């Protein structure tokens, strides 16, 4: 009998298999998050909030308290929880549209205030749930439903570099990184450091994860990974931008 792969203890078995499309990156990010929750032993302290967009499908993903919020509003809801109950570990989970477009004022101001919450953001270069429109993170020239001839940066600007922005406005003590679902081991380390930052109470923590959307990209497995590993990383550099206790720009 084949052994089932180990799933994080914090995952809720009753809601698996999960609801994301085949090949979607959300499952990988949430697996890394689940393993971090297990290793840190914080399942009973988690309040998980999900945005509207594909990330909303994670509302019953964990055996943890979870709140579906509104599109772009996950950061303030979780900030509200954290301010009232500082002993809870608050994780705001969202996509690039939720974090960098409709909810950007919340992300910027939560980062500026150095809120002791963790924001985990999936960057897949488009709005997945609504059918593949151009997102703040759509690459130059990339075709989407609202940029059918390719993203024209003259007319629509350049892709948002979220971690760079957050890193620029957070004080020392915050944690900021960009990981990728193509390197899950590294992504998991980043998420763990982000949660440890919250546990230590030193500052805001933010991890962007490069993620795949084969449904809207209309790519097969090979092209999907090629896009994540080769195309996206040309624009979105993977690595840590700010680590508590370490000098910047290392």
């Amino acid at each position, binding site marked *: 009998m084949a052994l089932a792969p180990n799933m994080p203890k914090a995952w809720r078995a009753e809601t698996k298999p999960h609801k994301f499309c085949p090949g979607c990156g959300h499952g990988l990010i949430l697996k890394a998050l689940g393993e971090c929750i297990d290793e840190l032993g914080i399942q009973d302290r988690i309040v998980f909030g999900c945005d*509207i967009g594909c990330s909303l499908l994670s509302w019953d993903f964990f055996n943890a308290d979870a709140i*579906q919020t509104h599109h772009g509003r996950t950061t303030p809801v979780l900030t*509200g929880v954290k301010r*009232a*109950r500082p002993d809870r570990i608050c994780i705001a989970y969202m996509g690039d549209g939720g974090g960098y477009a409709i909810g950007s004022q919340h992300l910027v101001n939560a980062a500026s205030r150095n809120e002791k919450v963790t924001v985990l953001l999936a960057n897949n270069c488009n709005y997945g749930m609504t059918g593949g429109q151009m997102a703040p993170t759509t690459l130059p020239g990339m075709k989407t439903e609202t940029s059918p001839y390719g993203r024209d940066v003259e007319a629509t600007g350049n892709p948002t570099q979220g971690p760079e922005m957050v890193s620029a406005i957070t004080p020392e003590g915050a944690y900021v990184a960009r990981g990728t679902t193509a390197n899950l081991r590294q992504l998991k380390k980043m998420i763990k450091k982000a949660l440890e930052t919250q546990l230590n109470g030193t500052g805001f923590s933010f991890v962007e994860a490069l993620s795949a959307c084969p449904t809207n990209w209309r790519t097969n497995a090979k092209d999907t990974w090629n896009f994540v590993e080769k195309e996206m990383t040309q624009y979105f550099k993977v690595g840590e931008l700010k680590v508590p206790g370490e000098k910047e720009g290392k």
Partner: protein
Amino acid sequence: MADKPIKGEKRFFVTGNEVVAWAALAAGVDIMYGYPITPQNEVMHYWTRLAPKYGRKFLQTEDEISAGFTTCGGVFSGARAFTATAGPGNTLMQEPMSMAEMMRIPAVFVITQRGGPSTATVIYSQQEVTLTCFGGNGEGMRVVYSPGSHQELYDYTIKAFNTAWKYRFPTFVLGDGYQAKMRESLIMYDPEERGIQMEPTEMIVGKEGTPGVDREPAHLRNTYNTEEELNVVVNELVDAFWKAAPEIVEHQEFNCEDADIVIVAHGVVTRAAQAAVKELRAQGKKVGHFRPITLRPYPIEAMKTAIAKAKEIILVESAEGQLDKIVKAELYGSQIPITPYFRPGMGITAEEIIEFINKKG
């Protein structure tokens, strides 16, 4: 750290915004979230001065959308939490208010109405009645109190927290710029000493124990996949609201028993209406006044009784017919004529009401 903000009973002569801050303290509010907008600002000013002395918290957010959503977050974690806003801020806050409606979040919102539409004036109006009662993409499953004096501002701010937590609907104290900014005397008191038990709050998320092991996780939704699924949820909301409504509705009436004319007005305008009734009665006119204290749910049964013998309603409000719309919908089928006296964005005095009634003969 001081224990109770108010001990026994104390007379104050203060602005309405200060009243709200004291009432929230006395009600045991744990945290306020807010964003500056006139004429609400001094609620935050007094709260931020008083709250730390009693171990209460405050967060100034980046906008009213965030103020509303952080308030919802605070309530989810079991805090007695509120925010205050007005005008364009009320417009922005409809988004979190709609989430509060859908998810039965017992958040309290204090509204100090200013002129509208748009930025308009920072002074006064009753133009946020429709927005506060029926705003958002929902069905208006909200409780809205319309106080008329500083004493009521104090009483109903305390009551709003109890109504919210007892019935689990977002609850509003709909004041206005006059009430916010003017000074008036009132008695402040500790609710417990008056026999008012504060409804206990409850952690909606973050309860003790490991979810999935010791207890079920709280998985809170506001997104549904099918029409049928949503319909069940909305029907439950609607049923719960109308079941609670008879316990929630409140009103006041003045000389309605034998009145030919009944003035209908709410909020601060009730004071002009009450004074007008006194004067017109002295002139020998059979005039009464009905005042809804809850605009949502509306005290329609009491109103039907109050106007049973009347020949006419005069609807007086500082808006172009927002209360009027509610009244007409509630009175559907009644033949009683309704004469409007609308002054959008302007105050209304007793003299003006008296003159209006005397002129029409």
